[in-house]
């Protein structure tokens, strides 16, 4: 009984099709069998964005804020996972953030006691390393200049650019490492060893280049 109307015309319904607006002989839109596409074609183009001094200033503000928040101590990074073997240098190279210390000092009276975390304090003597530090950057830059001059003299066609690339990266790395090592002297606790004697080698500090096609020399 229920299936009597099937197949004859569009099917019987309890109301008048004309009332709804589907007249005789009209074709209905095709049925959809899948969800709508992810990027459907737009019938109307959107209005262009606002422009003007105000808009650009706020854009610049937004980008600056975003960059600045990455440097603030509120940006919490997980500590790098421990390497397989404990190294001696771990004791003196604690430049990386640790899980157990907090980088800034909140007002603990405004927080519940259970949230208290040890505040990381960079201790150490400031005046003496400063003297050394003012010299180091100059030396680093002189290194770059002398290297540039030597490279100019060579005038190699194909590999010159790549070598310059590597050299500069290496000098930058060394400079950074030297500065870092200088800074680590602040963390000197009870050791007689002078940090600059300890050479970390090229692998330490990680390669700044992920896509080095050529081998390191």
């Amino acid at each position, binding site marked *: 009984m229920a299936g009597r109307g099937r197949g004859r015309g569009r099917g019987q319904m309890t109301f*008048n099709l004309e*009332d709804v607006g589907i007249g005789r002989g009209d074709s209905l839109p095709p049925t959809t069998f899948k969800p709508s596409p992810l990027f459907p074609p737009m019938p109307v183009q959107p209005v262009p964005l606002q422009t003007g001094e105000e808009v650009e200033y*706020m854009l610049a503000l937004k*980008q600056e*804020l975003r960059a600045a928040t990455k440097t603030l101590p*509120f*940006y*919490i990074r997980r500590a790098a996972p421990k390497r397989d073997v404990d190294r001696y240098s771990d004791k003196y190279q604690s430049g990386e953030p640790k899980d157990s210390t907090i980088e800034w000092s909140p007002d603990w009276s405004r927080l519940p006691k259970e949230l208290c975390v040890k505040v990381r304090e960079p201790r150490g003597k400031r005046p003496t390393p400063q003297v050394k530090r003012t010299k180091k950057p100059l030396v680093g*830059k002189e290194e770059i200049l002398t290297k540039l001059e030597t490279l100019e003299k060579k005038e190699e066609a194909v590999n010159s650019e790549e070598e310059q690339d590597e050299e*500069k990266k290496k000098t930058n790395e060394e400079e950074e490492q030297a500065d870092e090592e200088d800074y680590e002297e602040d963390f000197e606790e009870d050791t007689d060893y002078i940090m600059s004697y300890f050479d970390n080698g090229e692998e330490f500090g990680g390669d700044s280049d992920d896509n080095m096609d050529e081998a390191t020399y």
Partner: protein
Amino acid sequence: MTEEPMRGNRRSFRHLPQNSTNSDVGPPAYQRGWSANIPSCNAQLFGKINLPVSAEIRCVVALAITCVWDSEVVLRGFSRNSFHDLKGCFAKHMTAQEVRLCGLLLQEHFGEVVERIGTHLLRGGAQNLRTIANETNTPLDLVKKSLCVLVQHGACEFGSGRRGPGSPVEYRASCERVLRVLRYPRYIYTAKTLYGDTGELIVEEVLQRGHMTMSNTVKTVADRLTHNMEEGRSMEYSEVVSAFSKLVETHFLQRCPPVAEMGTAATSTTPATPSTPAAPASTSPPTAESNPDCYKLPHVTLIGRGKRRRSSDDSEEQRGGKKAKMDSESCGDEGIYWLVNFERFHQHFRDQAIISAVASKLDQTSSEIVRTMLRMSEVTTTQTAAYTQPLSANEIFRSLPPNYSISRPILDQYLSLLVDDPMEFVGKSGDSGGGMYVVNLQRALANLARATLESVVQERFGSRSARIFRLLLRKRHLEQKQVEDFAMIPAKEAKDMLYTLLSENLVQLQEIPKTPDHAPSRTFYLYTVNQLPTARLLLQHCYKTVANLIERRLFETKENKRLLEKSQRIEAILASLQASGAEPEQLTEVEEMITAPERQQLEALRHHINKLDSTENQVDETVFLLESYIFSTKTK
């Protein structure tokens, strides 16, 4: 979960409100969205299944049923209480889109760890420390650090546990506060327009650090300003202090609320603060406004000038991170922290929106009059007031800005024009003093929201659909035939447009039965638009839009990560070369390390990111309007 089509003769729920649930009439089900009307869906489904409906099952199934067209799921803040106290659990509604957007914002500003903890808190309601650590699989220290950061920025509150003072502390995240992060550039720019560079930097510092003491802020801002000045000049602390006090006087900055007493004390110890005593978690923590001192400046004298950082100190600064440097001398305002008063900024934005609407609808002079009225009632209007205090025409005349010298009769004419305008921004509340006038804040917001809705429909569906939409807004309920006649659109196209709008949930169907058996041939089907639910829907769309924009930006950045890193390195090399005085040939050699196609790619990337960023800012303006409107209707 599919809903069976209900045939007319099997209907037995006549007592229930019928809201577009009949699938025989109107466009087929695949084109139609579900109208989110929970109680009726609930009762209908349960009526059919004939289950003994208990509270828990009802809310679980309600969750499943409420799938809006584009599969948004409304998450209820299921705190542990929910199964015992239904009223409490539905207090804070956070939709999936809001939580997603909050997660992205937290990730951008505070990192992934804080994002994980934050979204867990937002989804799960109030929880204690151990639960958070266990459920997110994060080490306890990281959880503690993240919570410190969230509390510092006001995104999280803590209170004593549910089971009384002895239970562990519970933390609750605030979705609203995290969403404010999107509006930071607008706050900072407003402070700049009102109080200059000093004000701008003060607000920026306080926003970046959550809350700060006055002395700390003054020192940091003075240092920053000095850094940007020429050699030999430095910024006086007193100038910064005066800008700070101006911000506090006009209520843009306020004191942090005192911390609620937790655990043991039954009575509040400080008489000045009317904070509630330690009690079950349902009492709200004291707000900033409840403190009578919240706009009082501390008595500290800060004398000094900003320090210019030498370039050799720069590396030291960067290495140590931007820590809030506390000098060894304390300045006497320990414990008094200041934070940005977002509500006051929102009031300012709302006033700006009203003034610019008047300016574009009428003319500049009318907008100046409205601006004067709003300025005069800044202090006397509460936040949630529906209209300002009545102002007499005499007062307005006296307070007009001096460069707008219009005569008294002209002012009266303008005022009567404003009152007669259909937008109803200004209303007349009496005749004393030359006429008492008020600014209708609530109505103005409603009109602004309505204009936004209309504009959205127009831009997405064309001007004829917008005509139908406006018609329905004005005339409330119309039959299909009437829509075609009033809008002067041919029947077929009108039907098409109506069905498109219906499928997007911008328009709803209302059934009015003529006969008790609800036969479809003898029922009126009326189309209607409800402004408030439509505004809510659009607001959720906006949140989704911003979240999509952020994700796309992250994707673009990730795709070109290598290129960006290379260009940053080259810039660093160039900078160091320039600082050490290298020759131009060397500089050009270094510059040529980036090839021309790479430069093009970088340029295109920068262009895309700029576009995405400024779109976020623009969508945020719409979000603000809709949020203000929805909020103003809540507090009736």
